[in-house]
């Protein structure tokens, strides 16, 4: 991990503001719940420092932490960060938002690939670090978290390090259950928990406004890279993925193409002319 540096907070917040302007609106049915701006600044600095000089895979990234890191680095607000960032997301709007921003701001180390994590992972062992903020698994004992973390482990060839961002609450039982299940899963797959940073992030989450998340950071027990065939997620894991009898039904969220991307959608308004004609 690189040494911490002083950060120009105004410049960092304004940069994150640009990133937020670029994010597609969240789809709650897929647990797209966005992190709040202040926490994005803090999280981006932390992750950039942690993954300094590494090739990084993001397994899903609605929050746009990947873009934030690359942008803060490119602007010189952070002097450290990963050498390469690839975002894997099943939402084409998110992938295209990454590509558009990277193109506009000349972020040469940032790219995105349309990928549904229920399917075999396409780039096994090509990364050093992974990052994921998955559906938190309140209804499925953390199975959804394990699916995303598992793809991250494949991305780093079961070597290197990873971070999962998941719910962390003193009062509720299910986040503790999920944290326990995820730690067991990590150990069973050759990773140990290196650090847990409790209750760091807040979200635009109207049904649980006080719920926070933590960073749970893993490190591989062995540095030896294992590249094996990736397989699809088993059906029995999917059966109750979104609650009882609620298996995932969508492979990809496709973007409706517009030439005027970023402009307010025309079905939101109409012009009433001066003079009424």
């Amino acid at each position, binding site marked *: 991990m690189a040494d911490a540096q002083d950060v120009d907070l105004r410049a960092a917040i304004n940069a994150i503001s640009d990133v937020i302007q670029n994010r597609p609106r969240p789809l709650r049915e897929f647990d797209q719940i966005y992190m709040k701006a202040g926490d994005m600044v803090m999280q981006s600095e932390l992750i950039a420092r942690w993954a300094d000089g590494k090739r990084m895979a993001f397994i899903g990234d609605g929050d746009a932490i990947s873009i934030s890191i690359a942008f803060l680095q490119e602007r010189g607000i952070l002097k450290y960060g990963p050498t390469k960032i690839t975002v894997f997301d099943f939402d084409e709007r998110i992938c295209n938002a990454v590509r558009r921003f990277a193109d506009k701001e000349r972020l040469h180390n940032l790219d995105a690939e349309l990928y549904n994590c229920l399917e075999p992972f396409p780039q096994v062992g090509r990364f050093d670090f992974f990052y994921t903020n998955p559906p938190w698994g*309140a209804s499925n004992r953390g199975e959804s978290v394990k699916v995303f973390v598992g793809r991250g482990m494949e991305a780093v060839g079961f070597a290197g390090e990873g971070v999962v961002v998941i719910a962390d609450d003193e*009062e509720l039982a299910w986040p503790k259950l999920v944290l326990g299940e995820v730690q067991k899963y990590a150990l069973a797959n050759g990773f140990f928990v290196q650090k847990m940073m409790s209750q760091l992030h807040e979200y635009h989450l*109207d*049904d649980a406004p006080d719920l926070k998340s933590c960073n749970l950071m893993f490190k591989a027990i062995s540095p030896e890279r294992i590249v094996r065939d990736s397989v699809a997620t088993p059906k029995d894991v999917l059966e109750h993925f979104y*609650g*009882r009898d609620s298996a995932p*039904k969508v492979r990809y969220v496709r973007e409706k193409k517009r030439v005027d991307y970023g402009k307010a959608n025309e079905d939101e308004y109409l012009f009433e002319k001066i003079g009424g004609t």
Partner: protein
Amino acid sequence: MKNTLISPKTGILFMKVGVHAQESLEAIIARKTKEIEDEGFALWGYGGNTCHPSTMVQPFAREFEHRGGNIVLCMQEMVSNHFAEQVRADDYSINGMEWQSIPKGIKVLGSRYALVIKNLRKTEEILELDKTRVAVGNSMGRSGDKYVQGRVDKACLELAPAAQDTGDQPKTVAINLVADIASPYAVFLRNRT
């Protein structure tokens, strides 16, 4: 007031209600009652993600169906000034992907989501929120009285395991309106223009 709403086999969908999309509660009740008489069901519109149709209400209802029970919509009347426009929804969807036209006799205004109700009755009962807990979603397990406050005015609740009697005054809310919810329980809404 009676206190008979909650049981291990009855899930409670709690909601505060009042003026909605510039229509008084009395007018809404009269209109919905007529819709149920004419069409066999009505759509009770609402918004917000505390009772999201596919990630909260439908799994909640299926869970109680699995237990051999049901869920009941319990509404507390409140003074409100709901500013949503009186835009009528044209279509409804169970999953947000496949859409069907809303029958002509059913009018649901200014809402993103709706509950499917098969009856509607006024009542004078109380709900002990401190004896409930959130049944689904990211706040699952949180005590009902701690959850329903501030911005949160709806909740999928179940009976909590018996807590030790602290001698505190029970935290209750008055329930003025009750409805039984029918499959598919909750739907997405959209308008075409």
